Structures are given as structure tokens and as C-alpha cells.
């Protein structure tokens, strides 16, 4: 079958991506995972300046999920170029830079500075990180702001622009449509849900910033509902992410209407997930006489 995925005027050689923030800058997983299997490698968020990230601890497990409060910890634009890009140039996967910031200008800076880098396939605009106090959350929840920011970024780059949607909104389809109107080539959903856990022994929230972002199988149904609804509301491709831990979960996303998928938390848990997902996709396609990824969505009755 044909595993390629068309996004804007570009192509991914397979529908399997690794989600931003869970795969570093690729080199960390080089020894563990055959990167030939990864169609798209979404980098950790890149901001103009380096960010140390949030207070510790930053991770806590929840029932079938985890909360993180990494807080856009990243090396910043300059060290991304000097230390991370050289390796990324060598990977077979499409390298998609996850772009973040505290204000609009940060997004422009990252995209403009990196625009000419051939090693970069496209951008994922992270409007939705729940761990950034100023800007972040409000930004991804207001359709008009999303449309305008997307349109501005659109003017800066020929490469595919993917807008990443937060599930922490009343109606995710209006945000998706705003991104589409602004000229996005695709949307990806979902980012993490706002969540919290309390350590009753120490009488504190486990995460020093109180809330964090919930990911993992617990959010699978929320991600699927989002993809199902968004893919029926926009004409651009929808990239499904959230809670995939088994190959069947990935198939569910494709049936729900996703044009491609991302594996996040499961990268931490099962290094064989990528191969298993790809095998399941091929097998399912053979069984249901599907010749391309785009046809999966039509299987749903």
C-alpha cells in the first residue's frame, strides 16, 4: 500500500510521527529506535531564547496517564542550530520544528531564523502549551488570534504550517477552522489536558506549578473525539495525537479521520511501538483493501 501522506505541497513518507517534547531532537533515540520508521520527527518546542524549564518534579504518573510540567525547557534557537540541526540533517524522517513562545513575535523569530534551513520540512505551531503562563493558553483558545498568527506565519514560509490545537477549549472545531482560514496546511490535535495531582502526605500539589499537562492512554478517547470532530469541520489534513499505546489506537485515529498520527508518551514506554503500528497499518489496509492512508477515514460507517 501507499504509506505517504500529503500535507500542503509536501509529503511524508509514512503517517507515523513522534510527538513534540517526547522525542527530544531525535539523537536521544537514535540507538533505540530505527528512525527510518519515523515519517515525521516533531522536535521539542523551540523558543528564541533558551529556557531552563519549570521547577521540579516535572512528571507524575496518573491512572493510565502522566502529568508533565516541563515548561518548554529547550536549548533556544542558537543552540538548536549549532547543536541539534546537524544531527537532524542526517535523519530520514521529515523534521518538523515545534515552534513556541510567550508572545507572537517569538513565533516569527523562530520561523524566520530557521526558514532557509533545508533540513527542516515544516513547522508545528504550538499555540497550546498549558505550562506557559503568559500568552500560551490564551493564544490557542481565541479563534481570531489563531487565524491572525497563522496568517502571519504563512507569509514567512513556504513549508507546511501545522497548527497544534489544545483540547482545553469549548469548541475545538472553531479553533481548527480559524487555523484553516489563516492558511494552515494541517492541524494536529490534541495537546495535553490541564490536570493536577495532590500529594496528600506532603500536603502539596505534586507539580510545583500546581497544574500540568495530561497525556497517555487516559486521554485517548478525548483525542479521538477531537480528531473525529475536527476532521469533519475542516478540509485540511488532521494529525491525530493523544494516548496511542497500542497499534489499535493508531488505527482508531486513522478511522476517526486522521491523515497521520503522532506517538507521544508511548515513546517512553515501548520502543517497539513504531514498528508495531506500521505493521498494523499495513495489515489492516491489506485486510480491508485500502490502498492509501487517506482511504482509512472512509472505512468508518
Amino acid at each position, binding site marked *: 500500500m501507499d504509506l505517504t501522506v500529503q500535507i500542503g505541497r509536501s509529503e511524508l513518507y509514512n503517517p507515523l510521527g513522534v510527538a513534540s*517534547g*517526547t522525542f527530544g531532537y531525535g539523537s*536521544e533515540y537514535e*540507538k533505540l529506535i530505527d528512525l527510518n520508521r519515523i515519517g515525521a520527527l516533531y522536535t521539542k518546542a523551540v523558543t528564541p531564547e533558551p529556557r*531552563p*524549564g519549570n521547577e521540579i518534579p516535572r512528571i507524575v504518573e496518573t491512572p493510565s496517564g502522566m502529568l508533565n510540567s516541563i515548561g518548554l525547557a529547550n536549548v533556544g534557537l542558537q543552540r538548536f542550530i549549532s547543536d541539534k540541526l546537524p544531527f537532524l540533517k542526517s535523519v530520514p524522517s521529515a523534521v518538523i520544528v515545534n515552534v513556541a513562545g510567550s508572545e507572537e513575535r517569538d513565533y516569527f523569530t523562530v520561523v524566520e531564523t530557521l526558514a532557509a534551513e533545508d533540513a527542516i520540512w515544516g513547522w508545528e505551531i504550538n499555540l497550546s502549551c498549558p505550562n506557559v503562563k503568559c500568552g500560551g493558553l490564551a493564544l490557542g483558545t481565541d479563534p481570531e488570534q489563531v487565524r491572525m498568527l497563522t496568517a502571519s506565519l504563512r507569509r514567512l514560509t513556504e513549508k507546511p504550517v501545522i497548527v497544534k490545537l489544545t483540547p482545553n477549549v469549548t469548541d475545538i472545531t472553531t479553533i481548527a477552522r480559524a487555523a484553516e482560514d489563516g492558511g494552515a496546511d494541517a492541524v494536529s490535535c490534541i495537546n495535553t489536558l490541564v490536570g493536577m495531582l495532590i500529594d496528600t502526605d506532603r500536603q502539596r500539589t505534586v507539580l510545583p506549578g500546581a497544574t500540568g499537562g495530561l497525556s497517555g492512554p487516559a486521554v485517548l478517547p478525548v483525542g479521538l473525539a477531537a480528531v473525529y470532530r475536527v476532521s469533519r469541520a475542516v478540509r485540511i489534513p488532521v494529525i491525530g495525537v493523544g494516548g496511542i499505546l497500542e497499534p489499535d489506537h493508531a488505527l482508531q485515529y486513522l478511522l476517526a479521520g486522521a491523515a497521520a498520527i503522532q506517538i507521544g508518551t508511548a515513546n*517512553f514506554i515501548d520502543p517497539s511501538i513504531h514498528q508495531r503500528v506500521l505493521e498494523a497499518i499495513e495489515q489492516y489496509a491489506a485486510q480491508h483493501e485500502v490502498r492509501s492512508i487517506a482511504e482509512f477515514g472512509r472505512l468508518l460507517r
Partner: protein
Amino acid sequence: MPAMARYLTAVLQNRPIAEDFYELQFNWPSQAPAPKPGQFLTIRTSQSSVPLLRRPFAFSRYDHEDGSARIIYKVRGAATAQLAGKRPFDAVDVLAPLGKPFPLPDSETRPILVAGGIGIGPILFLARALHAHSPALRLIVGARTAAGLPSQLSGEYGEVIACTDDGSFGHSGTVIDALRSYLSTTTLSTNSGESVLYLCGPEPMLAGGHRLALECGITAYVAVEQTMGCAVGACMGCAVRVLGPERYARACTEGPVFDSRLIDWRE
């Protein structure tokens, strides 16, 4: 750091060695790099999503001859409870070896090893590795009560200084108390260049060891513990506060062993 990989291997033995403490021995795949003291592995204890994350454990022993490795672990929650239920021939899903090992002392330096609570495993591994080369090695091991101390300690690693918080066995008090008195009764503090501390245990203990080392002008290496996501340096989840502009280092790849002077010990 030798390359890590995921291995599906098998339990050889899993037995209680002290109150709530178990030792898990499992096949060490022949193609895998030999683990070194201070390094760790992560285990996925269940195929379901509870518990979800792999759990990190330090190697406590590696036997090249019979191709086996071990960890010593304490039952604390869901994952360690499941681990305690493993029987010989059960599968274990490990990612290993991970992290930086303890830097070994040169032959003139006298190593002092200090373990508290679940810090026992990596310290025993190091003690075993150093025993032959450093007859002057000192091992200080602590637990809350006598029942929390592994029974086999004496003999295997030379003379061991045991401590219990409640005085039910060995010295009464913490390992840091014992370390302080050991340091003061030896000429060590004056020959500072000749000694090096290795510590693993709860954070207050590591901080105490660090302060003593500063006082005595000796180097201390601490193996830290932090909740982990990826364990391979990708997620920034296992951050440890360090001095310097970056403010955080990753316990999984830049540690878990750090020179104690690099760490920001503020509470």
C-alpha cells in the same frame, strides 16, 4: 556511555533480602554492554497502562560468568509491587544500561561508600567492584531499623559500618552521623586529597554528605533520584537543579551520578 537497548529477558531469582526489600536477578543478554556501578535500567512491569511509565532501578550487581545482573528494590507502589510478584522464568522488559557510572578512584585514593534506604543497590555494586583494588574501602550502610538492612552485608565487602535510626543494629543514628565520626576518627580530613565519597540515598542524606565533603575538602559523588519519563535524555522530565546558567541537568543521561559540587542543594 555504552549503547543502551531494550531487552526482553527472564527472571532468574527474586527474593526478599530485608524488610520490604527484594533482590531481582535476571539474565543479562550476551549482546548487551556490561552495566557499571552507578548505571541503571528501566523496567516496564505491566503490559497494561497501570502502571504506565517504566520505573528506574540501579544495578546492584553484574556477574559476567553466569550472564546475570541484579537490582535491589523496595516495594513502594504499584510497579514495585508487581515486580515483587515476578517468579523465575517470567519475562522482564528492560531498557539498559542507562546513565553515567560512578567515576572510579585511582589506586591512591581511599573510597568511602555510603548507602541509605534504596541507595543500597548501586553502592553494593560499587563496593564489589572496588573491593579487590581498594582494600582501604569503607562501606557505611544505613536503614531505619535492623529489619531494613540486608542480612548478607558483612564479609562480602570487607568491614561494614552499619547504622540504624533507632539503634536496633550497629551505630545508632544516620549514615551521615556515622560518616562524620568515621572521618573525624581517621586522619582523613587532613589527608584530604586521598579520599573520595560515594553516596546514594535520600536527598537529605546526599546533601549532608556533600556538606561534610566540602568541610573536609574531599570530592563526593552522589547518585540522585528523580521521576523519569523517557530515561534517555529526550523529555527533560528528570531535571536536577545544578549550579550554572542552564540551571537543570538531566538525571538520566548527565547523571544519575554527579559531583556533589555541581548540584544546587538549596531546599
